[in-house]
């Protein structure tokens, strides 16, 4: 027995070679499978994009767009002509210089996919090179969000690719990765389903400003960053406690309280998220705004986020805005009647909407814990006001396929599914695609409200701040009438880091600005 124990100890003592590089090990919130952030809105692919690509502008920690790859810019008095100049010395990781041709091709690719990009196109945007380092934007009409668009942090961020890649067809993901960002993707160490490795980009040219949000210097302190995909939460936490990993990007809510008691671990906010109850507005009963209002009236946001497992200090008891409490567009316009969940009032709205007990097919995801809780709360909430809920449980992949179907619910379609979205995808009328409810959209649920569409267009065009605020308020008031989707509450995702990791307070909004970290 003693001999066996001695053998075990000897084996244990045969440790790995000491680290030769400064490595940051991060347990990523998902496995990176698609290496093209211009193709999918999956957050893990977006994060991948931020590691290897750079942007012209980027939001600082206050949400203000700041120049990133751009050195100087000017705009005409009427806001229809913009001139930009790139910072000198920018280059892709293969050593080739970043030119205006790369920028214009990348922006054109982005415009074909992104809401803000499409809005720019609708405003008559035309990009033209002005030498190798300069480019211009001309607009047919004023557009109040040019810099916001170029520094858009989520959805499809306008990342700058080499022209050769940017001109590839957009109907399938790109497989080549070549950026000018702070890290280089190490493809030969990529094990899908397990690990993605990034090395510091030796050719990256950082800004001189201090890092803030996604803006400022992105000069990393670590030579190497490993994204590990650990599907078992218990093992991920054991690895963090042991010091095998430095950071868990998204901590399952059940583990927040126990880890707070661990002196070796620090917990922080990984960005705000909003719960969504998405309704199919092509079929009864949710083709009736009164019925949608009834569900909104019955929802207790706090109960939803509590059911998802978030502790009191990481959830907002009631958030009166559709645009993220604490965000740049927070407003409580139109929220008053819905502040308190009121079952009696919801039943009354249901009756006014002529609800006759039609079955509501609710898609319940079985494989994502917090979405499962959100869906079960949705079922309970609707049942509490007398709705006839048919909760159908399936995996998320099946929901993805089912929600695209336009068939009637009884013929394989659906009435409601649930999801969540990060703060940058809901914090304005343009980023919040569902709330804009543009008619003719192909967003699952097919929301359509001409007034919202018009108000959104007016808000985008408006350049005077006071008038923009008035339009924002009008937009939200109308949203409470039309209810394109139900806001099921706001919470903060949590990350967990080893206590010896410095600057974790500079991590921002659930985005991967790991260049701020040091050990």
């Amino acid at each position: 027995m003693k001999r066996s124990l001695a053998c075990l100890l000897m084996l244990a003592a045969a440790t790995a070679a000491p680290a030769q590089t400064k490595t940051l090990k991060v347990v990523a919130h998902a496995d990176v499978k698609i290496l093209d952030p211009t193709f999918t809105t999956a957050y893990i692919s977006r994060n991948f994009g931020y590691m290897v690509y750079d942007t012209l502008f980027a939001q600082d920690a206050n949400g203000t767009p700041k120049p990133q790859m751009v050195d100087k810019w000017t705009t005409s008095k009427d806001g229809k002509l913009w001139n930009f100049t790139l910072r000198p010395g920018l280059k892709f990781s293969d050593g080739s210089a970043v030119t205006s041709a790369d920028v214009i091709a990348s922006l054109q690719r982005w415009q074909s996919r992104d809401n803000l990009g499409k809005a720019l196109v609708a405003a008559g945007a035309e990009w033209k090179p002005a030498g190798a380092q300069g480019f211009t934007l001309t607009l047919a009409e004023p557009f109040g969000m040019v810099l916001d668009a170029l520094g858009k942090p989520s959805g499809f961020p306008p990342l700058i690719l080499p022209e050769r890649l940017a001109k590839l067809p957009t109907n399938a993901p790109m497989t080549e990765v070549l950026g000018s960002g702070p890290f280089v993707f190490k493809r030969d160490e990529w094990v899908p389903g397990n690990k993605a490795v990034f090395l510091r980009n030796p050719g990256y040219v950082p800004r001189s400003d201090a890092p803030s949000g996604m803006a400022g210097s992105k000069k990393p302190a670590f030579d190497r960053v490993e994204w590990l995909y650990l599907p078992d939460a218990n093992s991920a936490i054991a690895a963090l406690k042991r010091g095998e990993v430095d950071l868990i990007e998204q901590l399952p809510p059940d583990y927040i309280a126990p880890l707070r008691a661990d002196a070796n671990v620090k917990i922080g906010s990984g960005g705000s998220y909003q719960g969504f109850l998405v309704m199919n507005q092509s079929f009864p009963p949710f083709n009736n705004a009164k019925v949608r209002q009834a569900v909104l009236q019955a929802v207790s946001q706090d109960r939803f986020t509590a059911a998802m497992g978030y502790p009191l200090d990481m959830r907002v008891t009631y958030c009166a805005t559709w645009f993220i409490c604490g965000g740049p567009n927070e407003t409580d316009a139109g929220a008053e009647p819905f502040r308190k969940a009121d079952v009696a009032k919801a039943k009354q709205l249901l009756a006014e909407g002529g609800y006759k007990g039609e079955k509501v097919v609710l898609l319940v995801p079985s494989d994502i814990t917090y979405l499962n809780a959100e869906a079960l709360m949705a079922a309970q909430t609707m049942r509490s006001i007398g709705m006839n809920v048919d909760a159908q449980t399936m995996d998320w992949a099946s929901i993805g396929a089912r929600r695209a179907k336009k068939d009637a619910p009884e013929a394989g379609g659906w009435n409601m599914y649930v999801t969540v979205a990060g703060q940058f995808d809901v914090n304005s009328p343009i980023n919040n695609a569902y709330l804009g409810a543009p008619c003719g959209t192909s967003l699952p649920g097919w929301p359509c409200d001409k007034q919202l569409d018009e108000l959104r267009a007016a808000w985008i065009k408006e350049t005077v701040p006071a008038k923009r605020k008035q339009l924002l308020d009008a937009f939200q008031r109308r949203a409470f009438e039309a209810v394109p989707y139900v806001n099921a509450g706001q919470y903060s995702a949590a990350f967990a880091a080893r206590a010896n990791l410095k600057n974790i307070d500079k991590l921002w909004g659930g985005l991967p600005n790991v260049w701020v970290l040091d050990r």
Partner: protein
Amino acid sequence: MGYLLRRLAATLPVMAVVAVVVFLLIHLSPGDPAALIAGDLATADDIARLRVALGLDQPLWRQFGLWLGRLASGDLGTSIFTQVPVRELLAQRIEPTLSIAVLTMALTVAVAVPLGTLAAWRAGSWIDRAVMLFAVLAFSVPVFLVGYLLIFAFAVHWPWFPVQGYTRIADDPAAWLRGLVLPCINLALVYIALITRMTRATVLEVLHEDYIRTARAKGLGVLPVLGHALRNAAVPIATTVGVGIALLIGGVVVTETVFAIPGVGRLVVESVQRHDYPVIQSVLLISAAVYVLINLLIDLSYRLFDPRIVY
């Protein structure tokens, strides 16, 4: 040789059935990889365009034909998510899986066969009862629970072994072995329990044979007697070990997940969750082929233990 050829020929219809069943099962189950790839905010038009780009809009019979055609030319296809060839994905996963399978079965045989033989030799004694109690416990406690306990004890409380991860043997043999200790103990416990019981039962039966009694009466020592007994009890034990190896190569999802080892089991499960058709189809087909092959090797191995067996 004739037997071997007949057995190899018999695998062809098996593989054909596996190919058809796997293809139909995964394509007829609900779910759309295009919707997952496109992301949560994708529009129905985006998803439809992607389906066309991936060839998922084609009729099933055509997709099946294309897959078979590629397979015939040795092309296992490409993952529709990562765009990485399935061959490359498998190459990444096969080393961890083989490492786990070989080390687990080596540990199992090293522990279970002596333990089962000892229990049979001392049948009815406290040793026998202790061995059987251990076997029942090892078989009954869920694998994931044992995994968590091992991690807590030997990776967190006494930090002797890593919690997670896999190091390639070529990169660092010591780290490779160190990383596999806990997962292999975790997996081996179940097989040790199974093979210990199997060994005990078969050896006990053989020990009651006349020739063993004769050998003992002639004064043969304990070890030579047990050696004779074991050889005659080896066929069912070899069968169980062989099936165990085949199952381990097919993937041990729970252990791979708990210890974050990128093996074949996790590849299959992740591909099923994402409906990554080319990966599921090819990996399951290869797993089936490996299973058939190992069964054939087990059958052939019987002659080593018992020359009376003739094919």
